[in-house]
């Protein structure tokens, strides 16, 4: 008997045939991805391609059920394919071990699919896929989970809101002085240990940070002190790997630096003064101890200051040795020595500043931006994704119904309420000011080596009569390429201008004219061997409407806004240095919250 008989009976012959003949792309083969691939394969989706750049880690095994112990450190995409094919041998699954932003995954490739699934863990990739789907008008099912929360939603370009229609939460930032001089919470000390101390001691040598610091005039004295402190550290770093290095660092950062800060009376008028560590006594006591990390059961409690000193000294020595032998190191939460260093360094600083100490387990969560995940949430969400996909195939997005027993198709999210476990969220039409889906998209094939910006612009204004050449701007990302007052680049080739031939969207925006707004246009550059400029596919009709309200320029999606690390960033407003902590990290999440209440 045909295994698909029940599915065919339920879906109807026509919809089931669509399922069998649909080409789907799933981006991400992690927590949601494994569940999704199982569902797609079981239901009989005929052609599935999956992309994931990751390899399998032991902490994946509690939920990414297509992987077992023997697969650790292999490609997620390839192993997921092998496992899922055993569920259904009659379908095609193509796995790509790579980054979805790689050049080979261009717009034409995206457009070759009927449906795309986002099963991603980070904001940046999720936005990139959203952009490509909007540009290519490919329906996207987007999902995310974190803990017991999760959601799935339909993004039908031009019909529903896209992923970027609503601003995402901005990363948490801390003023640099809080991190460097006046911490008041454990997270400040963890950020200091991970983003300042770790790179200073074991990372690349760099000076730019200090140059920026000097510009800050409000805290001139404090800043000077910080610069001096960093210089001293760099000198100290030259002896990395030599005996006594860890002890010298210990004395410097927990006694000398604190003493220097204490000399700035102004800092402590409203704050409790830090207390330098009794370094000699602690080093002596630490030398008597055995490795405190050997007792794994103690990861969940706060270690004593002596134990913490011991962990600090041994991890610093280990990392310095590694630095001396193999060059600059970068922080990785799964690197035992790095994690030991950050936990100990942060806790010692907490102690100095009278801040409650944290356990190793907690510090790992905070430093690694680890998002808790359970398999059940992923399982529910991946089931909803496929049900949403069926809605799209049936063409029932934004359909209305008067039937008492049914409700219009919608996005759904998991809730923990006494009267509900799964809630519906209405789907809304696109937001008119969205920087992604309010634009028109056109794809052009060019030979970047011979085509000049002027050639391209001429072809564009020829095709779009509402765009007068003397009244548009052209940007690539945030880079200005052309403006009526800036035509220097018109004679240069796109290659010369370093316009990448894949994933480059040139933003062609008309200035307001005759109180009229023109729809902003994105031009996708497709590499071509042929000379000249060829517009591929249909030329979209740009809308025009009376101004105001003014459409604001917003940054293009898919840029390099965030990575999942805590970074030092310069805040344009006051030139103060800000420590930025990205929220887009961890595993299956990115983040969840685009649902409406």
């Amino acid at each position, binding site marked *: 008997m045909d295994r698909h008989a029940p599915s065919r009976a339920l879906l109807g012959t026509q919809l089931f045939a669509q399922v069998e003949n649909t080409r789907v792309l799933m981006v991400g083969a992690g927590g949601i991805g494994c569940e999704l691939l199982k569902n797609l394969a079981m239901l009989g989706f005929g052609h599935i391609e999956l992309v994931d750049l990751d390899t399998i880690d032991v902490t994946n095994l509690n939920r990414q059920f297509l992987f077992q112990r023997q697969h650790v450190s292999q490609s997620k995409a390839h192993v997921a394919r092998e496992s899922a094919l*055993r569920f259904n041998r009659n379908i095609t699954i193509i796995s790509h071990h790579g980054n979805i932003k790689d050049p080979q995954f261009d717009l034409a490739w995206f457009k070759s699919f009927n449906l795309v699934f986002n099963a991603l863990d980070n904001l940046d990739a999720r936005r990139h896929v959203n952009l490509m789907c909007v540009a290519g008008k490919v329906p996207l099912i987007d999902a995310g989970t974190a803990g017991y929360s999760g959601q799935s939603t339909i993004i039908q370009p031009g019909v529903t809101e896209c992923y970027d229609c609503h601003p995402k939460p901005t990363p948490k930032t801390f003023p640099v002085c809080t991190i460097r001089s006046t911490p008041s919470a454990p997270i400040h000390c963890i950020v200091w240990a991970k983003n300042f101390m770790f790179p200073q001691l074991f990372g690349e040598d760099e000076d730019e940070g200090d140059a920026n610091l000097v510009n800050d005039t409000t805290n001139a004295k404090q800043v000077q002190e910080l610069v001096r402190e960093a210089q001293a550290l760099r000198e100290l770093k030259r002896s990395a790997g030599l005996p006594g290095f860890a002890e010298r660092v210990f004395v410097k950062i927990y006694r000398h630096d604190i003493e220097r800060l204490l000399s700035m009376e102004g800092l402590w008028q409203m704050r409790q003064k830090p207390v330098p560590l009794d370094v000699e006594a602690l080093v002596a006591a630490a030398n008597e101890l055995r490795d405190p990390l050997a007792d794994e059961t103690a990861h969940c409690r706060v270690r004593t200051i002596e134990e913490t000193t011991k962990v600090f000294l041994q991890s610093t020595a280990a990392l310095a040795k590694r630095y001396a032998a193999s060059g600059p190191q970068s922080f990785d939460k799964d690197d035992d020595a790095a994690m030991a260093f950050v936990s100990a360094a942060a806790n010692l600083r907490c102690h100095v500043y009278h801040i409650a100490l944290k356990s190793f387990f907690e510090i790992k969560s905070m430093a690694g931006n680890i998002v808790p995940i359970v*398999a059940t949430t992923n399982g529910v969400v991946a089931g909803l994704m496929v049900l949403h996909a069926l809605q799209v195939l049936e063409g029932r997005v934004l359909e209305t119904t008067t039937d008492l027993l049914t409700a219009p198709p919608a996005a759904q999210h998991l809730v923990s309420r006494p009267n509900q476990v799964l809630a519906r969220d209405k789907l809304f039409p696109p937001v008119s000011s969205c920087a992604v889906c309010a634009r028109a998209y056109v794809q052009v094939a060019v030979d970047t080596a011979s085509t000049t910006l002027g050639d391209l612009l001429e072809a564009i204004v020829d095709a779009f009569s509402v765009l007068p050449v003397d009244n548009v701007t052209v940007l690539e990302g945030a880079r200005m390429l052309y403006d009526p007052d800036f035509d220097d680049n018109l004679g240069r080739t796109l290659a010369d201008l370093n316009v990448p031939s894949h994933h480059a969207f040139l933003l062609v925006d008309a200035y307001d004219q005759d109180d009229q707004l023109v729809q902003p246009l994105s031009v996708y550059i497709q590499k071509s061997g042929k000379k000249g400029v060829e517009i591929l596919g249909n030329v979209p009709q740009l809308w025009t409407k009376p101004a105001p309200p003014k459409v604001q320029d917003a940054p293009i999606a898919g840029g390099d806004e965030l990575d999942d690390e805590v970074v030092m960033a310069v805040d344009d407003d006051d030139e103060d240095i800000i420590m930025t902590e990205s929220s887009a990290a961890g595993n299956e999440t990115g983040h969840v919250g685009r649902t409406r209440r």
Partner: protein
Amino acid sequence: MAPVSPARAASPAAKRALSPATPRGSASTTSTTASPTCADSTSERASPTPKRVRVAAPTAAPAAATAAEVTGEAAQIYDRQIRLWGHAAQARMRSARVAVLGGSSRGLAAEAVKAMALAGVGKLVIVDPANVTPTASAANFFVAKEGGERAAEVVAAGARVLNPLVNVEARTDVDVTRVATEAEREQVRAVLASVDVAVLCDVPVPVAITINTMARQLGVKTLFAAVWGFNAVLMADLLEHTFLHESSESSADKDGDPIVTRHRITLAFPPLTEALAYSLATKLPPRQLKKSVTPTLLSFLAVIAYMREHDGRHPDLAKETDRDAVRAATAAQAKQHGVAVPEVDATALERLFRGSTLELAPVCAVAGNLLAQEVLKTVQGKQRPLSNLMIYTTAGGAGNVWNLGVVDTASVTVGE
């Protein structure tokens, strides 16, 4: 332990099942640890007056680590979920025993077993004598992957591959759908007595009610779930169930940690028969009643009533006789709950319940994982459980829950 009202069932097994906060094999419950995820209900004492508990690190390390520690490779494998529910909850799951009864060929049981095995439930007993059905591979990925004769054995083998740390047993000698003779009942009773929670998957409604009655006598909690085409239902009878409820407020203390209040709450569940006889009118004011008792709820309750009168058979709504029977049952349900009979269109009803004997893989994924999540919450003694009827319909796009007679019997604030 918080004062609770007298248990409905008083056997030793009942007492054990009622005390989720005392895991077997846990020697020490004394430590106060640093983190909200490490510190858990094993370590709290009830405090007489409500107070805010700041969950933050103590400055001095406690003397002993909790015995509920999960270490080594297990700690790595379970790391991401321990960060959600804590070490103590993980340890309680490890010592829990769960029987999955019936439906081994189907997707619902497969999904639930997979999720419970991955999470690290200590012992899973898969009870079903049936052979793999010809269309089992439509939604049961274990069958699709492994093949084999007895569905319970196939599912058990698959679960062992997913997590070698879990003890999985297949029982093909016991049939929960056959409880006509005392000998048969004794066999089922023996299986039930060996576990903490009985999970009934896709068994006929009358069977679920019978097994629930037997399980109650043994002090074993019951979760019943079924996938009916595009829909799923879940009913819970957790007897007297105590759980830790943590609510964190958006405000944070000076260390940036959220302020967490913790309550130990005890619920008393009615047996499934009583839940189905319960009237929401006894609890809800008229306005809320009208909103809560939806046409969907009444339709499902009517179908359940039909099944109880027809040996568990699904009504065939294309047939006039069955349609009339369901319509009459809907009217009876409306009367029971004190609301007007809804004007449900016959074709809409037929469409809602089309293919109810069949299953669809993604619906099994949704329902099986919701079911597994309830089992995990139950054995962890954490979070408010689903109380006590959940209906998910693909067409309605929501999973709604109705409280049919579950009452809060005690709530105590607990400290760190």
